């Protein structure tokens, strides 16, 4: 956080001032950045407290999968389309947390259909169909 504050102060130096005024767009970010640096120093001086107990290997893996899922959504958005992405990602994550395959597949299919109906058909959000070009909007 201190680094973010310092970067804000340094970058704000290049912001142009308002002609005829003592203060410009740099003032607020500079004050905030300096404050952030000060807070970071104060936090660093504190006792860090007890460390969080490490998660199990399976827990770490599912947490990592949850973090990776939005990246997969972004990368596969146009190629796979929303319904296949929702079905695939949903099934994979559900099975990772120990759900039985049949229940995982059925739940993910339900989520894919439900989200398509709500977002694409009712709310008119332009979700990509991917290979399933026959799906109604």
């Amino acid at each position: 956080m201190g680094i973010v504050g310092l970067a804000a102060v340094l970058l704000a130096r290049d912001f142009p001032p308002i002609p005829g005024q003592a203060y410009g767009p740099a003032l607020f970010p500079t004050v905030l950045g300096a404050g952030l640096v000060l807070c970071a120093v104060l936090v660093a001086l504190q006792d860090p407290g007890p460390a969080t107990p490490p998660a199990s290997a399976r827990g770490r893996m599912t947490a990592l999968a949850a973090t990776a899922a939005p990246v997969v959504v972004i990368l596969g958005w146009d190629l796979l389309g929303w319904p296949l992405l929702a079905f695939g990602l949903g099934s994979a994550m559900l099975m990772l947390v120990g759900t039985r395959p049949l229940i995982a597949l059925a739940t993910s299919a339900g989520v894919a259909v439900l989200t398509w109906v709500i977002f694409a058909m009712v709310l008119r959000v332009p979700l990509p169909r991917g290979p399933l070009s026959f799906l109604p909007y």
Partner: protein
Amino acid sequence: MDALLRAIVLVAEPQVLLTILASSIFGLMVGCIPGLTATMATALLVPFAMFLDPVSAIASIVAATAMAIFAGDIPGTLLRLPGTPASAAYVHHSYRLAMSGRAGEVLGLNLVFSALGGLLGTVVLVAAAPTLADYALSLSSFEFFWLSMLGLSCAVFLVGDNVPKGAAALLLGLLLATVGRDYSTAFPRFTFDDPELLDGIPFVSALIGFFAVPEIIRTLRDPGVLGAVPVVQASRIFQGMGRAILRWRWNFLRSGLVGTFVGALPGGGADTAAWAAYGMSRRLSRDPEAWDKEGIEGIVDATSANNASLSGAWIPALVFAIPGDTITAIAIGVLYLKNVTPGPSIFLENAHVLYAVFITFFIANLLMIPLGWLAIRAAVPLLKVPRQMLMAPLLLFACLGAFAVDNSLFGIGTMLACGLLGYWMEENGIPVGPAVLGMVMGRLVEENLMTSLIKVQGDLTRFFDRPVATALAAFTLLVWVWPLARSLRRHLARRAPATPPA
């Protein structure tokens, strides 16, 4: 009067009523699931709210949060797991009584006093907000600047446990709010030549990230086990409720007002209100032993306070555009997106919208009784679904919500970035609430600061020229000094017994 009639017509629209019903059910479900908070429910609602008219959008947030805060009591009583942090204060007390066969009575009290607390808070909101707004119209940028400073300071210094960490979160949020075109010169700040950032960081995607993603990651990482065996619930939950209302009317009034006040403090929120009312209940109890063992007084106090705080949080949000809690911070963001600017002028320009919001509060709290009764009956099967199974669908909903705001994948990227940042912050004891508060209020604070600075042309003493501004500045200073004085007193108290007698 005309505005009130227009408001009634607005709320009577089938779309608004259906929205309230659907959001209430959603809120009850989210509240029932331990680990999912009312704030998360609001964050996940926002993408839907984007497609609704302003009244329906706010109605959905009001209804969902009121229901979620009550529903948090259900797993708290039946499983000793608070459904939302607002129930944490009295969860052991509720569960102990439930184990002795009084689950029905406790759930009935939770339901009735939650609804009554919400109604009391709404009465205070309706009475206080227009009066304050009338006064607020006479305030200048100096007062608004100091008021914002006071609000932000309360969120960090009075409510938080760790001042440097809370302040760091707040400053980070304020800094994130500066991303995009500067309002006075339109100069792009911290955009790194990315056109997607010219209008700032997408707020809805950011808050979905801050509130939903860390919770999902944590639940998947540490699935946990249920800490207690569900107790059998009684079905006659309303038995003896009339007598209970009469008996505990003063407790209810006191705690409802305490909850409303705590809710109105920026950064307060339902959980702080419940802890404050529960602690006060114990201190003021005539029979502390009975209070601990078989009394229901503490539950009545805390459950009234947490729902009352929800309405209280809307007072500064509507009058000064200063959110009382994270939920109203999100709601303010939604109002801005819907071109309704909160602040004193809303009472002149959009009075009908405002009255409609007030009516929504009453409807949501009254609707809580029948829907809450159904939720209590349906809760046991829902509580049997493993929590981590719900995380995959929630993550997919979060991705869709982040995309749907601007129909852009940038929203999903923002959600992930803010989610990871929020997760890192919470793992290191840095609260995300002040960061979101900062993101919402950043523009307001900077606008009032810059307007005031341009007015005074470098003479900073003029920030203290007007009496109200001076008083607000003095209060702000007091809030800053208070933790220092408190820690100094503690330090001196620790040293005193060590001093050898003369």
